[in-house]
């Protein structure tokens, strides 16, 4: 991977995010399913995983995937998200020099899965990584959507005695998964 990715990784890890990269969607999916199993996701309240509808899922059979991990739910709503341990969503852009992810978050599902569960897995297409804030803001504009979200690391506070504590109202873990899109998908590898 190139220097921009290395910068992103460095910055995101500095704010307690985990960063992974896979060359294909299948590898990324395998990683995620493995991660969900490892996190103890199962078909019980407080142990669900919720996956918001996104581009990444387009080519996959959701039934087949959810069969492989019981408790993984694609019909996202408020109640189930509040009882989920893991939320998965696709983020639209990543900014290298601050380790930030950006999303058109107008659909409520993508906010529910990234705010309520303890763990948030964020999928990002590898070629959607830009160097800095100005270049990101040329690609996503408020004219296009009513809600743009920036996410930089997990939820944090230092409100008691200035001691950094991860995971207040939002996720306590942010797992960022970059995946390459094959050139036949219209994007450069």
């Amino acid at each position, binding site marked *: 991977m190139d220097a921009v990715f290395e910068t992103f990784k460095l*910055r995101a890890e500095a*704010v307690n995010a985990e960063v992974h990269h896979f060359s294909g969607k299948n590898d990324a999916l395998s990683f995620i399913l493995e991660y969900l199993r490892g996190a103890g996701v199962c078909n019980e309240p407080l142990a669900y995983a919720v996956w918001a509808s996104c581009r990444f899922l387009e080519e996959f059979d959701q039934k087949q995937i959810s069969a492989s991990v019981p408790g993984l739910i694609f019909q996202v*709503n*408020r109640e189930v998200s*509040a009882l989920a341990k893991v939320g998965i969503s696709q983020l639209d852009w990543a*900014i290298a*020099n*601050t*380790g*930030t992810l950006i999303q058109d*978050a*107008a*659909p*409520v599902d993508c*906010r*529910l899965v*990234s*705010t*309520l569960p303890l763990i948030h897995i964020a999928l990002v297409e590898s070629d959607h990584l830009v160097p800095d*804030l*100005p270049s990101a*803001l040329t690609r996503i*504009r*408020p*004219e296009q*959507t*009513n*809600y*743009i*979200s*920036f*996410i*930089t*690391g*997990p*939820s*944090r*506070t*230092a*409100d*008691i*005695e*200035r*001691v950094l*504590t991860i*995971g*207040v*109202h*939002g*996720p306590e873990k942010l797992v960022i998964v970059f995946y390459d899109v094959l050139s036949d998908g219209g994007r450069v590898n």
Partner: protein
Amino acid sequence: METKFREAIVKAVHNPNLTGALGRFSEAYRTSRQRAYEGYDFEALRTQIAERKSYAASHLDELADLFAKNAEARGTKVFRTNDPAEVREYILNLAREHGVKSVVKSKSMASEEIHLNKHLESAGIEVGETDLGEWIIQLAGQTPSHMVMPAIHMTKEEVARVFSEQVEPGQKPEIPKLVKFARGKLRTKFLEAEMGITGANIAVAETGTLVIVTNEGNARLVTTLPKIHVAIVGLEKLMEKFDDVVPVLTALPKSATAQLMTSYVSMISGPVPNTDGSLKQLHVILMDNRRTEMSQDPKFKQAMQCIRCASCLNVCPVFRLVGGHVFGKIYTGGIGTILTAWFDALKASDDIQSLCIQCGNCTEVCPGKIDIPGLILELRRRIAVEKGQPLAQKAIFSVVNNRRLFHSMLRAAYVMQKPLQKGNFIRHLPFFLSDMTEFRSLPAIAEAPLRDTIRKIQQPACQEKIAFYAGCLIDFAYPNMGESLVKIMNKAGIEVVFPEGQTCCGAPARYSGAYEVAAHNANDNIDALLANDVSYVVSACPTCTVALKHEFISTFESLGQAESLPRARQLAKKVIDFSTLVKKLVDAGRLKFKEGQQLGKITYHDSCHLKRTLHASQEPRQLLAQAGYEISEMYEADMCCGMGGSYSLKLPEISAPILERKLVNIKKSGAPIAVMDCPGCVMQIRGGLDKQKSAIKVEHTVERLAEEFE
């Protein structure tokens, strides 16, 4: 100053939890902020912010209209009002209309400003602050002590006690557990609330966008779960273009919490679907509450450039001692003083504004480029105009305004002090004056002032002449500093003239808000100092130098005395501080240091006005190094010593602990000599070390260098 206020100061200064937390934070902040800005051109960035915010302040009405038009086009309801009462009513009516029983809020200073919680609660609506710090102080029934870290004054034990008493018994003082507890309790509130209230960090006019920044993620929940979202936006948050977001979003996290980016930023430009598929009700309240008036005030317009990062609190030597419950009301610290005067009442800022020691630390870090100390002085002036000066102060200044009387009283003081004097110090003063000598000895008034002794010095005839402006301290307490200056100048082939008509520089009057007195002093000095044909007017007191170079002009400007400006500017051009002049002379080869000297360790204290207004911090260090000293830097070398002119007399409760920190840092440097360029700092630091019977020598750079030239 009210007695109650003074008591609050004493209580705060003696609260080790408070001063400990704030002190450690301010120390850590300095380095972490610097690290966050690594690779960024802070000056360029803040120039851009100041320019864009200033533009918005000049076009407030237009931008508010544009914002409303664009937001409404996308389905947002926009309500604009100058009246805080109307803001409260609007929200209450909306809540009633929709049967709202429970509200969740993410941090909003604007809502604090109008005491919204109280209003809603008294109407039977439950209001939950969700920012952890805000929730803690809400439960504790307090107000925020810091704009970014509202509960910084509380220990984990206090937080555990508040949680146990107000929410659920048995909470232990362990931070991760307390945070988890808050998460659980507030999660229920988020899910139940029918209305979410937020503030906004930026409101973009051209797109009708709100930008909301949080670390905890509470604003995301507040704007996602309840079906109604109300954003209270002070008009100062308006910016013209969406691209204006870039500089603010680049600076705000770095200045506020030393982060490269805050964990969450939400940009909301219109209603989004709720979780049940309905469309959210989005209300934006553009709140004026005198912001338009502020933007039209030629002096205070720049306060609209504030992005509420609170860095002015974090670097303030006074704030870190007393915290925001003393230094502020709703808004705290330096900028809080200014905002209180406008959004609350000028009167409300009276006691608070007196806390500013005018060190200028905040001007170096403000991302909005606001001259906070300058604006506080202007408040002081307006308060003095409104309520008049205290009688005692008036009496003092009427003496200062009469040069002959003032000087003869200082001479008389020499005789009167005799019984109290020990060597060059006064160590104890009787009665109510004892506060002044409790933490440091005062210098004794010299037997003969410089204005007398200087005439006895045989100066060589030189072609070049400079005028020396002594200032009261050098003239009457430390004439030796002036004599040293003459010695050095003579070695450079320059004759020093001492214009007899010079008098107090007016700083004490100006810093007390008595601008008429300061203007009188300025006129006397301008007459005296422009009477001779000299190449420079040099001063060895940075406060006086700043008065001569900058403040005569701004005093006349404030008072609208335009006729005095040309001569004030003429003088300003000639004025130079001692170290900068000597550095020039050394660089030009007109002064030569004795060769090959190894003079040992020395530590240098930066005086506030010299470093931050005159921008001379390298010159004295280079001179000392060239002379043969090894500079052993003390920690926080450029932190104020607590003198602040008459500040140390008015507020010894604060001056003393500030000095104490300085003395510790001087001792830790390991140098046997501490030098500085300001006779005021010498008075404070020398007096403090004398009280502690320390062997460390404290000198003005001019004294230290006097014997080091060929």
